C-alpha cells in the first residue's frame, strides 16, 4: 500500500490520482469555476463557517450520537460495535449535512434557485427542506421507477414546496435523474445552482460534498476517543455514490491503523448482471463529468444498476473512492439484497433501530466483520439513514419471499 500521508486530494485540477476531473460541456464550465471560487472563499470565511455550524446544530440536530450498540455486540460476541447515528439528523439521513452547506453557498453566489437529483428521495427531501428554510426555489428530478418505489418521499418534497419532475429516460433511476438535472442546469445555469447529492459529478462537487459530509467522520473520531481514548480498529459505511462513506472515511484516511470498509450493493449477486457494485465489478470510464469506476458494456455504454435500495442504485461511484480503491486504502466489498434485508430486520430487533436499506448494507457487512475480530477490538458502522421510508418495500419483499 502506498502511503497517503499527507493526504492532499484532490489536486488543483480536481483529480484524485487519475480519477475525477471536469468532463462537462463548455456551457457549464463557467458555473463550475464560479462554484469553486465561491466555495474556496466561503470555507475560509469565519462568518460562513459560523452560519453553517449554527444550522447544523440548531436545525439539523448535530452532533449525532456515537452509540455503543451493546445488544448487537453481545449477540455477536466479538468486537465492540458502535453506530454513528446519522439517522437521527433532521430528515432522517446524512444527506442534509451537504444540502445545508450547498444551499448557503447558493445564497452566497447570489442565486435563488436550486436543482437537484434524487434516488431514494433522501437527497431530494434534504434539498427541498433547506430550500424551504432559506427561501429558495427547488426543482428535483427523480426517476419514474424511483418515484414508484419511494412515493412518500415524493409527497414529502411536494409538501416542502419543491417541484418533483419525473424522469422516464433510460432506466428511470438515479443515473437518469442526474442526466436530467445536468441538462436542466445547463438551461438555467445563470440563476440556478445544482445541489448534487453525492461525492460524484465534475470537480468541485466531489470535494465540496466530501467536505460538507466530513462532519460525520470528525465527530466520530472525537466521540470514539472520548469514550475509549483510542481510535476504532475499523469503520464500515455503505457506498452508492459514496457521500456518507467519504465523509466518514476522510478524517481516518491518514490513520493507517484504522481499517476502512466500503460496502456496495450486490443486488442479486455480483456474479449476476443485477447489482450496483461499481468498484467490485466496474471498469474505469467517464460519466456525469468525472472519471471513475462504472458499470458499462464493452462499447462504453453505461449499464443499469440494480439494488433493492434506491439510494445505492447508481452505476458510478465517487472518484475519490476509485482512488482509495486503487491505492488499497479502503477495502470495498458488497452485500446482496437478501443479506441487507436480513440485517435490516436484525438491527431492528436487537437494537430497536430500523436502518435505511442503504445503511443495512453496512450493517450486514459488519455482521460478517464481527466474526473476524476479537473482543478487544471495536469498530464503527455509519448508520447513514433511518428505515421508515423503506418499511413498505421491505414488507413487500418479505411477503414476496414467503410466497415465492
Amino acid at each position, binding site marked *: 500500500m502506498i502511503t497517503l500521508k499527507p493526504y492532499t486530494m484532490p489536486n488543483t485540477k480536481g483529480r484524485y490520482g487519475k480519477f475525477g476531473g471536469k468532463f462537462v460541456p463548455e456551457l457549464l*464550465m463557467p458555473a463550475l469555476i464560479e462554484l469553486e471560487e465561491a466555495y474556496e472563499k466561503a470555507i475560509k470565511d469565519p462568518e460562513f463557517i459560523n452560519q453553517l455550524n449554527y444550522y447544523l446544530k440548531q436545525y439539523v440536530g448535530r452532533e449525532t450520537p456515537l452509540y455503543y450498540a451493546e445488544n448487537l455486540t453481545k449477540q455477536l460476541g466479538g468486537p465492540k460495535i458502535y453506530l454513528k447515528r446519522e439517522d437521527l439528523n433532521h430528515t432522517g439521513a446524512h444527506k442534509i449535512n451537504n444540502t445545508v452547506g450547498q444551499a448557503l453557498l447558493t445564497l452566497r453566489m447570489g442565486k435563488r434557485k436550486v436543482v437537484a437529483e434524487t434516488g431514494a428521495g433522501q437527497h431530494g427531501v434534504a434539498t427541498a427542506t433547506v430550500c424551504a428554510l432559506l427561501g429558495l426555489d427547488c426543482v428535483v428530478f427523480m426517476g419514474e421507477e424511483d418515484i414508484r418505489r419511494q412515493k412518500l418521499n415524493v409527497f414529502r418534497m411536494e409538501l416542502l414546496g419543491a417541484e418533483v419532475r419525473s424522469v422516464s429516460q433510460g432506466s428511470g433511476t438515479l443515473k437518469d435523474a442526474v442526466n436530467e438535472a445536468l441538462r436542466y442546469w445547463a438551461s438555467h*445555469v445563470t440563476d440556478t445552482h445544482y445541489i448534487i447529492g453525492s461525492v460524484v459529478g465534475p470537480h468541485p462537487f466531489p470535494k465540496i460534498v466530501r467536505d460538507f459530509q466530513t462532519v460525520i467522520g470528525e465527530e466520530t473520531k472525537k466521540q470514539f476517543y472520548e469514550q475509549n481514548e483510542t481510535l476504532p480498529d475499523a469503520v464500515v459505511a455503505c457506498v452508492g455514490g459514496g457521500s456518507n462513506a467519504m465523509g466518514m472515511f476522510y478524517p481516518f484516511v491518514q490513520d493507517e491503523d484504522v481499517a476502512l470498509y466500503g460496502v456496495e450493493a450486490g443486488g442479486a449477486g455480483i456474479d449476476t448482471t443485477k447489482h450496483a457494485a461499481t468498484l467490485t465489478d466496474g471498469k474505469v470510464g467517464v460519466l456525469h463529468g468525472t472519471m471513475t469506476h462504472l458499470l458499462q458494456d464493452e462499447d462504453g455504454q453505461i449499464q443499469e444498476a440494480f439494488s433493492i435500495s434506491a439510494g445505492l442504485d447508481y452505476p458510478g461511484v465517487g472518484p475519490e473512492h476509485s482512488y482509495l480503491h486503487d491505492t488499497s486504502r479502503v477495502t470495498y466489498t458488497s452485500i446482496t439484497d437478501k443479506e441487507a434485508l436480513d440485517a435490516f430486520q436484525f438491527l431492528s430487533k436487537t437494537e430497536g433501530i430500523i436502518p435505511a436499506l442503504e445503511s443495512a448494507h453496512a450493517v450486514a457487512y459488519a455482521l460478517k466483520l464481527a466474526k473476524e475480530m476479537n473482543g478487544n477490538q471495536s469498530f464503527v458502522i455509519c448508520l447513514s439513514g433511518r428505515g421508515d421510508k423503506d418499511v413498505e418495500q421491505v414488507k413487500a419483499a418479505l411477503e414476496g419471499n414467503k410466497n415465492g
Partner: protein
Amino acid sequence: MGKHYLEKAFNDKLSANEKIFVPYIMAGDGGLDSLEERLRFLQECGATAVELGIPFSDPVADGPTIQDAGVRALANGTTLHSVIERLEQFKAERTIPIILMTYINPIFIYGIERFASDCVKAGVDGVIVPDLPLEEEAMIADYIQDKEIALIRLAALTSPEERIVEIAERTEGFLYAVSVTGITGARTSHQTEVKSYLQKLKQHAHAPVLAGFGVSNPKQAQELGAYCDGVVVGSKIVDLFHQGNTEEIKKLIQES
C-alpha cells in the same frame, strides 16, 4: 481526407459567397444500412459536411429528439466500432466530409490511440466531443491532431472572453458556437445576445464559425448566418429522417 479536406470544403463554400450547412444525423437511427444513402442524399441537397452522431447511453448535452434517436440506434446494435467499420467500407465512394460526434466515454473505452488510427482508416475528417472542455482535452487532442483530424471545439454563450479567445485559438475545422443556453433541440426563437456573441467569436476565430443547438428552420439559419459562417442543424434533421420526410430536409437545406 482529414482536417485539410474539411477546411477545403468550407473554404470552397465561403469563397462562392455561400453559407455552410452541416446537418447532424444519428448513426444507426434507421439502421446502419441507410447511412451511405443518407449521406449521399444530404450531399445532393447541398450540405457542406455531415456531423455524424455515435449513440451514447447518457448524452447530457442532448435534448429529447437526439436522445430518442440514440436509444433507437443503440437498440439497433450501433456501436462506435460498427460505425467506423461501415464508413471504411464505402470510404472510396464518399466525398462529403464527415465529422464524428460522440461523448468521451465510448472513445475512452474504444482506446484513444486506436480511435485516432481507425478514424484515419474510415476517412473521418473531424471529431467533436461535447463533454471535453479545454481543461480535459489533453486526453485526446494530441492523438487526434497527430492524425491530421480536426478537433472541433465548442464555445458557449456563458463562456467568458478569455475562454472564448482560447477556444477560438485552439479549434480546428470550425468553431462550434453553441447558440442557446441549454441542450440540443428545436426552439422557436433565439436570444438577442446571440448576435453579439457570434460577432465576438468571429472576431477571434481563424476558422469558420458555425452556430448550432436549437436551429430548426431556414429563417433561423439565415438570421444566425448573418453573423457567422453557417449553421449546424441537428434535432430537426433527425426528426425529419425519422418521419421519412426527406422533402422537408431538402427544403430546409436549400432554403437556409
